[in-house]
């Protein structure tokens, strides 16, 4: 184990769903945190800082949720901060926790992400709230939706690289298929490329099965300084060896190349430098990439340096990113298959990769494979604010 890199002690996640059982985010957070603490084999009183991620109080109908949740899980007295970065909120929380540990501010940090994105508001209301997550005055109030903005970005990628919707459909088939082996997933489906291409048009050229699923959910993990990690010999652990973040112009029209995720590239490069990664396409074994849309997954893979610009589609179709591929991407199902609960997403991604590195992910998805290094990637806006983390397996 490396001397100072934060260690993931344990993690917990509730199923991502549209919950119709009368429960709410307080309940899901309680369950996720209890699971994370049990997995970490520490008592809750050993936590000395909490970081909470959620995208918007419009969804939860709870302003200032962080102290509420600290109270809810029995940690009154422990300092808490709430972070927000749209769909990247979970990644921002993870980065904040890394900062806590590296700075010495805290020894064991509980990182919580949640969102009540699916069951509180109607679809129309949710779409309107998401519109405000871009430039509200210049875009959101004009009536543009998230899908439209991603569609405009994608078309630039398609024009420059000849990417086709048939190629992109393979992302949906792969991620919904992976979700079939993930009991926490919102949208497990065995579908074909033809099913994707025949699904309802949402915003040209994106069809319904190109879009991720909006979910309720919560996830939590415990991050600690290696010196504050209880000794355990029963399984490998995961260390976070790299963290990067960067921002792009808020409005697509002010980006020189609207289909290129340049800020994600900068975030990844910063994380790779910190982790000593010089050739990510060869050194990274597994990744969770922010697939808010099928095209965004490919744009993200390229920005993360896991494929050359314009090269991800062919590798996807060849099976490189599938369950048995050389570089499995979104084994959880991603936002398309597992679901997207914005505040929880980045943390759920880290949980997925850490469990894969530790050899204890869902059996059909672990498939007996041993992974050494992984990447988790999420963003808010159209890759406007980005968070990349490198995770590495540590032997007991």
């Amino acid at each position, binding site marked *: 184990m490396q001397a100072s890199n934060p260690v993931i002690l344990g993690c917990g996640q509730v199923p991502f769903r549209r919950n119709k059982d009368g429960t709410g985010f307080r309940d899901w957070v309680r369950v996720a945190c209890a699971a994370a603490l049990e997995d970490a084999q520490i008592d809750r009183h050993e936590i000395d800082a909490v970081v909470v991620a959620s995208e918007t109080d419009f969804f939860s109908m709870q302003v200032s949720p962080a102290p509420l949740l600290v109270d809810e899980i029995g940690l009154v007295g422990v300092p808490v901060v709430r972070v927000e970065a749209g769909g990247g909120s979970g990644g921002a929380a993870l980065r904040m926790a890394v900062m806590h540990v590296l700075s010495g501010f805290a020894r064991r940090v509980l990182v919580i992400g949640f969102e009540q994105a699916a069951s509180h508001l109607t679809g129309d209301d949710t779409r309107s709230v998401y*519109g405000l997550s871009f430039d509200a005055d210049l875009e959101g109030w*004009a*009536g543009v939706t998230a899908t439209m903005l991603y569609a405009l970005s994608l078309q630039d990628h398609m024009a420059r690289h000849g990417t086709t919707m048939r190629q992109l459909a393979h992302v949906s088939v792969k991620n919904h298929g992976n979700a079939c082996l993930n009991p926490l997933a919102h949208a497990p489906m065995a579908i074909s490329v033809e099913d994707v291409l025949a699904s309802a048009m949402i915003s040209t050229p994106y069809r319904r099965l190109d879009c991720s699923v909006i979910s309720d959910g919560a996830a939590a993990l415990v991050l600690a300084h290696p010196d504050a990690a209880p000794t355990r010999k029963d399984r490998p652990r995961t260390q976070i060896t790299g963290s990067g973040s960067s921002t792009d112009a808020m409005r697509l029209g002010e980006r020189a190349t609207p289909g290129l995720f340049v800020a994600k590239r900068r975030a990844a490069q910063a994380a790779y430098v910190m982790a000593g990664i010089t050739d990510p396409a060869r050194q990274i074994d597994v990744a969770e990439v922010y697939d808010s849309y099928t095209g965004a997954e490919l744009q993200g893979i390229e920005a993360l340096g896991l494929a050359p610009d314009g090269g991800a589609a062919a590798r996807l179709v060849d099976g490189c990113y599938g369950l048995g591929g050389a570089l499995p991407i979104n084994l959880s199902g991603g936002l398309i298959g597992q679901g997207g609960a914005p505040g929880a997403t980045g943390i759920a991604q880290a949980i997925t990769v850490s469990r894969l590195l530790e050899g204890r992910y869902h059996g059909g998805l672990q498939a007996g494979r041993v992974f050494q290094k992984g990447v988790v990637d999420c963003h808010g806006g159209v890759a406007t604010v980005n968070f990349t983390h490198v995770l590495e397996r540590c032997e007991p």
Partner: protein
Amino acid sequence: MTVKELPPDLSLLLTWRHGYGALTPFFEALREGRLIGARCPVCGLVTTPPRTRCGSDGAPMQQIDLPPTGIVTQLTTGAASSLLGQGPGTPTFALVQITGSDTRLLARLDVKPGQAAAGSRVRLMRCMGPVMHPVQALVFRLDDQGA
């Protein structure tokens, strides 16, 4: 009382008294069918909407008038609209390369599906009716007068 007997729906209607700040001249011009941008006196970058400071060198930008015309570079037509937008039907939004600007502008197009494409020339429409938010006046139509 069981959970199922509790009232399931809550509604909260809020009204914001909103200020538009440095965007006010842009929105006021839109209502008159004009388009304004800004030019950086240092590097010459022209943007619309106008920026107060240049994104490249940080210099204060100078407001300028721009032609209300442009060329569509990307567009999308949505079956599902946001409640925040104005007008019925299937909205089309585009990135428009405004004549004389170095940046593209996101705007609604007043076209039927399939009527516009990348490369179409468009012209800013004059806002005729009331809008809730002034950006809803940012609507282009096909430009039958050419460039």
